[in-house]
């Protein structure tokens, strides 16, 4: 009884805790991480986590129109996608979300998987000049700079941002299929299934960005780019 951490007096029980958690997630503009909530309310993280889990489950029920989801490693409240048509007619004042072109999405996905990555590395995969797209992605805050690579010329490195996770509704990078899975899909689509080259090195999962030092994966055309 007495070894409990002192709970704030306004939070005597589970019912009230959950109500307060719902209120907080409702109010916040950004996804709130478990740590933010637990330390902000001075409550044990595991208790908060269980409560939020229950709230999320509750909000997924079909009779609810507003749900709590995991986005960018945090909890966030939003409407459900299935109501978008009706909701849109009531949110005329909200700005429509900007679209991204397919080339921009492809460049973004290269960065998501290869981060941190330099422009020459991205271009080696995309096969085209990507500087314009990089500008777009930077100004939309989907990517940001991530220091410089320690190679000749010290090129800037780029990585995806938290906004990227938010705008794509991802809870974290590991939610993306692994490169291995993508490779299987690609091979299935383009080949008759049979693998020819078996010298394929296993690739990193997104986010495990240890590859700063080695440019080994970049195809050799890289050296045709000037400068």
């Amino acid at each position, binding site marked *: 009884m007495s070894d409990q951490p002192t709970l704030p007096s306004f939070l005597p029980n589970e019912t009230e805790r959950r109500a307060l958690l719902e209120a907080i997630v409702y109010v916040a503009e950004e996804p709130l991480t478990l740590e933010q909530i637990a330390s902000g309310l001075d409550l044990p993280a595991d208790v908060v986590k269980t409560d939020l889990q229950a709230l999320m489950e509750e909000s997924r029920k079909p009779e609810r129109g507003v749900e709590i989801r995991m986005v960018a490693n945090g909890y966030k409240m939003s409407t459900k996608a299935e109501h978008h048509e009706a909701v849109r007619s009531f949110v005329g004042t909200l700005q429509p979300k900007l679209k991204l072109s397919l080339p921009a999405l492809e460049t973004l996905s290269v960065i998501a998987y290869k981060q941190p990555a330099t422009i020459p590395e991205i271009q080696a995969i995309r096969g085209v*000049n990507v500087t314009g797209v990089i500008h777009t992605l930077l100004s939309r805050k989907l990517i940001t700079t991530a220091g410089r690579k320690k190679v000749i010329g010290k090129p800037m490195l780029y990585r995806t941002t938290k906004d990227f996770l938010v705008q794509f509704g991802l809870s974290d990078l590991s939610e993306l299929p692994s490169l291995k899975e993508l490779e299987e899909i690609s091979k299935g689509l383009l080949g008759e299934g049979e693998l020819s080259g078996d010298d394929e090195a296993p690739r990193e999962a997104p986010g495990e960005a240890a590859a700063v030092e080695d440019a080994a994966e970049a195809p050799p055309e890289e050296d045709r780019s000037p400068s």
Partner: protein
Amino acid sequence: MSDPTTSPLSPEETPGPDEQPPAEGPRSEEDGSSFDVKLEQYAGPIDLLLDLIRKQKINIYDIPIAEITSQYLDYLRQAKELNIDLGGEFVFMAATLIQIKSKMLLPHDPTLPEAEQEDPREQLVQQLLEHEKFIQAAQMLQQKRLVEENVWSNPPLEAFLDEADEPGLAVSVFDLVNSFQSVLERAKNRPRFDVPGGDVSVESRIEYLKNLLRGEDGPVVLREVFERQPTRRAMIATLLAVLEMVRMQAIILRQDELFGEIVVRKHKMFDVVFSGEQPLLAVEAEYSE
């Protein structure tokens, strides 16, 4: 895995070093490769190649390189006829394809066992597969994004913030360097606006108003802006510029009372509108006589 020596091409067709796209027309008689490339726009040469492979259900591990090369060159030729500007990357890839095609004609190294024979296509295949992975990733991201475009949040955070919290932009490194660049640009352009009767194009007035408002968080009295114009021509150009900027949703005009002062302030889209150079270029084209 096909044997490169079975290539249908005869040695005479081997392209020379400074080979132009083959002279035969798009409807090639010989191998019946009359595959009709729709003149779609491709972001890059790899996208074009992948599309050719996909549409013809070609096994990527056994690309009929002569056929694909001729289809690829056809596309380039058609693009040129239609005056579509393709990039240097497309030309580079053409050279690569022609090089692979000629390598395929070389006899095997008899000293190497079959398994170690190098396939000249190998590297291209890896490049295509690598690219395809990210096309898949992009499509997956697009789906995620579509869902996200359809959900809305409406957090009433502001009601819980201290009054003392100053409003402003959440800033990143990009904003920092971007804003330094625009400061420099403005510094460079500054004297231009002091020349009486100088540059009075609508475009220049938009530039002037843009710079005037960029550093201004509050409203500006429109009358004062007009009064600062050195000539009638400049005033008219400024008026047109204001109307144009309203249309572009860069600014908002407001008049609080009848016959009161009209004030102009930035629209919330101001920074978005001026984030690229497009609008000004377009305006310039519209108004220049």
